[in-house]
């Protein structure tokens, strides 16, 4: 079943066209990745889907409803939540209090919110930092906190904007099972990522955005062999990313 549908989406900032006639669909239970060069419009796409910017044209459908123009908090209540590429922790609050804000969407009691925040922190491996101020977290910690807060709202669709960027390879390797577990728990995931190995290992499908247009879509294996994608973004030798590293590709 289609959970998210984007139809002929255009976003313009004054004279600049950030997104041009973008159409895509995400099915329930999928992990779909959006890749593309800097400035391709990936974050703009997320902002439009999550209600942070109003599309110039086009429609957004979520769970069978037209949600174009709804504010972020309404979409979040419906189960569509985003994280921010540039993390936005509530710096003065502890990790637990940060996560509790997300939990509060579906749970009124503050005591229960703080307790449930613990479980969420465990899922993203942040449990040992629960009572630290968010301002004290490292980059990796802040990325996890973004993820934890979003997860705390009990979403159906999670938009992850570069949650792996800025992490070292060991930290990336640690986050991959976290993302997989989230999907296994029934959450659909649309993610933007520059860390290509991880993208290839994690996602069922990949969308390539170049200059505000969808240049290609396909499985990871198809994408890395697509000449147009190689030319526009990946460069020569990209297919090694899947053949050498992806267990899925090796098994196939």
């Amino acid at each position, binding site marked *: 079943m289609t959970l998210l549908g984007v139809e002929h989406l255009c976003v313009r900032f004054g004279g600049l066209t950030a997104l041009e006639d973008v159409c895509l669909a995400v099915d329930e239970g999928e992990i779909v990745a959006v890749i593309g060069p800097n400035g391709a419009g990936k974050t703009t796409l997320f902002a439009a889907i999550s209600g942070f910017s109003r599309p110039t044209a086009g429609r957004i459908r979520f769970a069978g409803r037209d949600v174009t123009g709804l*504010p972020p908090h309404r979409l979040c209540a419906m189960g569509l939540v985003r994280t921010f590429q540039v993390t936005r922790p509530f710096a003065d609050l502890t990790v637990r209090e940060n996560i509790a804000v997300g939990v509060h969407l579906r749970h009124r009691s503050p005591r229960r919110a703080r307790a449930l925040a613990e479980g969420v922190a465990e899922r993203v491996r942040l449990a040992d930092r629960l009572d630290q101020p968010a301002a004290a977290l490292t980059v990796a910690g802040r990325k996890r906190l973004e993820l934890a*807060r979003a997860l705390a709202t009990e979403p159906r669709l999670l938009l992850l904007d570069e949650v792996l960027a800025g992490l070292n390879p060991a930290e990336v390797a640690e986050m991959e099972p976290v993302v997989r577990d989230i999907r296994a728990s029934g959450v659909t995931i649309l993610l933007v990522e520059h860390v290509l190995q991880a993208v290839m290992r994690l996602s069922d499908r990949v969308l390539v955005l170049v200059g505000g247009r969808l240049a290609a879509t396909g499985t990871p294996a198809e994408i890395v062999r697509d000449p147009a994608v190689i030319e526009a973004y990946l460069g020569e030798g990209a297919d090694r990313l899947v053949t050498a590293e992806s267990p899925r590709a090796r098994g196939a």
Partner: protein
Amino acid sequence: MNPAQGERAALVFLVLAAPLPWLVDSGTLVHFGIMVFQAATLGQAWNILGGMGGQFSFGHAAFFGAGAYTTAILQLRFGVDAWSGFFAAILAGAVVALVIGLASFRFGLRGSYFALVTLAFAEVLRILANTLEITGAGVGLLLPLAPGLERLQFADRRGYYLLALFLCAASLLVARAVAGSRLGARLVAVRENEEAASALGVDPFAVKMRAILLSGAMAASVGAFYVQYFLYLDPHIAFGPQVSVEALLGPIVGGPGTVAGPLAGAFLLQLLGEASRALAGGATGANLVVYGIVLILIVRFLPGGLAGLARARAERAGAGS
């Protein structure tokens, strides 16, 4: 001291302060106490919106004055009793808050823009009060002296002392309830980062409206108390900028966003104000100079206010043990 300890300390302070005028026979002390409780309650009103919610108002005089004029006009011009006037004043504060909230939050005004809008509202109300006949224009309003509990006037100043203490305690309990609730968590989230909060399902507009309604009603109750105590009101007293400054100074000095901060700040500032008045031999404005200096020092060296200082000390002690 952590915030929860601070709250308890503030409540204990109020309980201990209650019988004080009956133990120590001093009119100065009673008046001092009244001024502290009044400033603390006004500060707490500001604190809920500005400290917890990060919406810095520079015009809390609008609420204070609306409350003061509402009860004064109702009593003088319409023969309404003081108690009903008091509750009507609280309602009037909420109505003014509704108008200011809609006029600014609906249009996403934040930061200095919001501060300016609140300031403008207070000034407009001051000018209106200065012109209209019903408010007594520049002459102001004088309430007849008529002591009696049913008229909310006391021949013995200690009655006012208890009433002010009660208002202060009530404001503290309300702030504590807010801080410990979902609304409080959301207010703080909006203060820290509005976009991130809305991404997590928080409706910033709804949250800010609730805070300003509560804040406005609370500040208006202080205005109504002022009228009962001094029995006189004019546009400057009600809507002048010194009221707005007093509202924000206490919580900023005491610890913005903390429940105990406004009381601690009000106490310190009143103390300093009295001291400077005594030292300056009653030169008017001496206390304002001292307030200014204190504010500069606090902002420069103690951004968390007294509460921040207490917390830092506790953390150092905790780390040392």
